[in-house]
């Protein structure tokens, strides 16, 4: 088990290095950052000076190595746009994204599993079919359109919910949270629905298929033959077996929520790292883009690791190598 973890961690570091290299090499093509940093009246001399200062004129490998060296110490350099340390900006903006991802992840997970089970158990029911079709609508419309329609209905027409921003946030020393204020929670609702809806649909369909498979297994028939109540057949016996494969894919699914946040944050002006990344691309703010990518890959690799661990925890069959080989 331990060896397995070490091997996975080593592979993860490898992944990070590759991500860094790929990300860094791509930035050269995305545009010229220098132009944005200098005002209308700059001269060619200014451009040269700044390029030289930013080290953009040095060979690519040197730039990359210097970037890695600094990144290791948590110093991702200064944002060309804001002139502030990238690490500081990321830490400031991360709570917003994580809280949004957490709430929409919760919505997607519990909503997805609950609806998945319901549509599996009441497979022939009219309600199940309606839910299935409605859920497809969630997957059939682009996220940004869903977001704007929600704003149109709930903010402009009904005026119940705020259309942008994160509302009042309380600073808990380094971590700003929107959970403790009424406006913070209200501001979370629409973006969480927009971001979570798509994932919820995928998880629901996954749970439904998996549950239908499990419900046909012999041990379920045997449980029913033993007169076990339908409720505990579904939830104690079937659900546990359904969740094992679901965990892996859901783990990755939730990972992509953070990536999907880019669009939701742009539509709702949600001050998270997704919006920061979009601004960075428009402004060709390379340090922020590089730091964002590294952070995302660390998160992804971390999630992959956790999901694998979860696998061991849930499925006893995999734990056989740990117990001293039962006779």
């Amino acid at each position, binding site marked *: 088990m331990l060896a397995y973890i070490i091997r996975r961690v080593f592979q993860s570091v490898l992944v990070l290095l590759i991500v860094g290299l790929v990300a860094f090499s791509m930035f050269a093509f995305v545009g010229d950052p220098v132009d944005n940093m200098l005002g209308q009246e700059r001269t060619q001399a200014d451009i040269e000076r700044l390029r030289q200062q930013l080290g953009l004129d040095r060979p690519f490998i040197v730039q990359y190595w210097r970037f890695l060296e600094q990144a290791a110490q948590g110093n991702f350099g200064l944002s060309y746009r804001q002139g502030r340390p990238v690490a500081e900006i990321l830490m400031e903006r991360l709570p917003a994204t994580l809280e949004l991802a957490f709430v929409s992840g919760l919505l997607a997970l519990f909503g997805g599993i609950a609806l998945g089970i319901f549509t599996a158990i009441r497979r022939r029911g009219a309600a199940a079919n309606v839910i299935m079709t409605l859920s497809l609508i969630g997957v059939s419309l682009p996220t940004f359109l869903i977001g704007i329609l929600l704003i149109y209905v709930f903010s402009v027409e009904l005026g119940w919910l705020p259309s942008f921003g994160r509302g009042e946030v309380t600073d808990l020393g380094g971590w700003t949270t929107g959970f403790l204020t009424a406006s913070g929670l209200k501001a979370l609702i629409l973006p969480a629905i927009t971001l979570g809806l798509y994932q919820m649909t995928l998880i629901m369909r996954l749970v439904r298929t998996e549950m239908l498979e499990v419900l046909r297994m012999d*041990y379920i028939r045997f449980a029913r033959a033993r007169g076990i109540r339908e409720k505990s057949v579904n939830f*104690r016996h079937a659900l546990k*077996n359904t969740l094992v494969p679901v965990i892996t894919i859901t783990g990755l699914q939730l990972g992509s929520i953070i990536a999907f946040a880019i669009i939701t944050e742009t539509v709702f002006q949600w001050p998270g790292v997704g919006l920061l990344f979009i601004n960075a691309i428009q402004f060709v703010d390379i340090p922020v883009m590089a730091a964002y990518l590294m952070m995302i890959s660390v998160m992804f690799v971390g999630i992959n690791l956790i999901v694998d661990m979860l696998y061991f925890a849930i499925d006893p069959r995999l734990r*056989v190598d740990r117990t001293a080989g039962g006779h």
Partner: protein
Amino acid sequence: MTATPVLSVRNLVVEIPTRHGVLRPVDAVSYDIHAGEILGVVGESGAGKSMTGNAVIGLLDPPARIVSGQILLSGQPVHTLRGDALRRLRGKRMGMIFQDPLTSLNPLLTVGDQLTETILEHLDVSPSEARKRAIAALEEVGIPAARDRIDSYPHEFSGGMRQRVVIALALCAEPDLVIADEPTTALDVSVQAQIIALLKRLCRDRGVAVMLVTHDMGVIAEAADRVAVMYAGRLAELGPVREVLTDAHHPYTAGLMASTPLASQGHRRLRQIPGAMPRLGNLPPGCAFSPRCDHVQDRCRHDPSPTLDTCDGRAACWFPLRSQKDNTPEHDQEAEA
């Protein structure tokens, strides 16, 4: 055998509506099983053996459903019960043993959990009492060191051991009737014998009525008190095992016996029944066995095959084989030439 039978099935008919027409996997089947008695139900696969068992315990997969006939459990009608009423009987009054031990136990719950859960469902005992009974059940089915094996997971048992756990589970709520659906098919021969011996012992000690469904005549000969032979959803022959095996009245039973290498039969050439059992979708007119029967007469091809009691009470055949001794296999020789 005057006591009321634990299980009595009267003219049970099960139908499945499909796009090719309505199929009848179980067609007017009647039989009784008394306490402490093992009724073997044998026949080729698809003959409706398992379907009968599922109908009795009420686990028919839709769209299959009971159309007519009665199922009485110790005199109490069961076929009319639905939902919770039926559920409460399962496990408590009738248990079921499945074929493949690998897939019959929930892989993620310990053996102990699955046992105590069933016990607590039906008997109002305290959890600690339930655990004690679970251990007792495991010991009764011959699991060594049951006390410390109760908390292990199904995958930590061998195939044979797992089938013993399945049996323990089926009996832990002390049912009167047990339907064993091909309990030995998935096991290798040596383990089969142990499981059969276990079933016989439990049936005798506990006075449980057992319906043993199998396609293996050897298991029937070994374990069953009485045997029912099924063909294409109908009961071909029913009677005490000694008589049916040695002196089959129905040509199909005779053919079956001729094609089974029983140790007791000594050395003789095996004979094969020509053709194959018809699919329920296109049954031949008249007796379903007519196309393969070497004693077929015109009547067999026209009239629907008789039920047991309409003919000699032993075989559903217009021309049951008389029990003359000379009716030995040599007689069939020339038919073969």
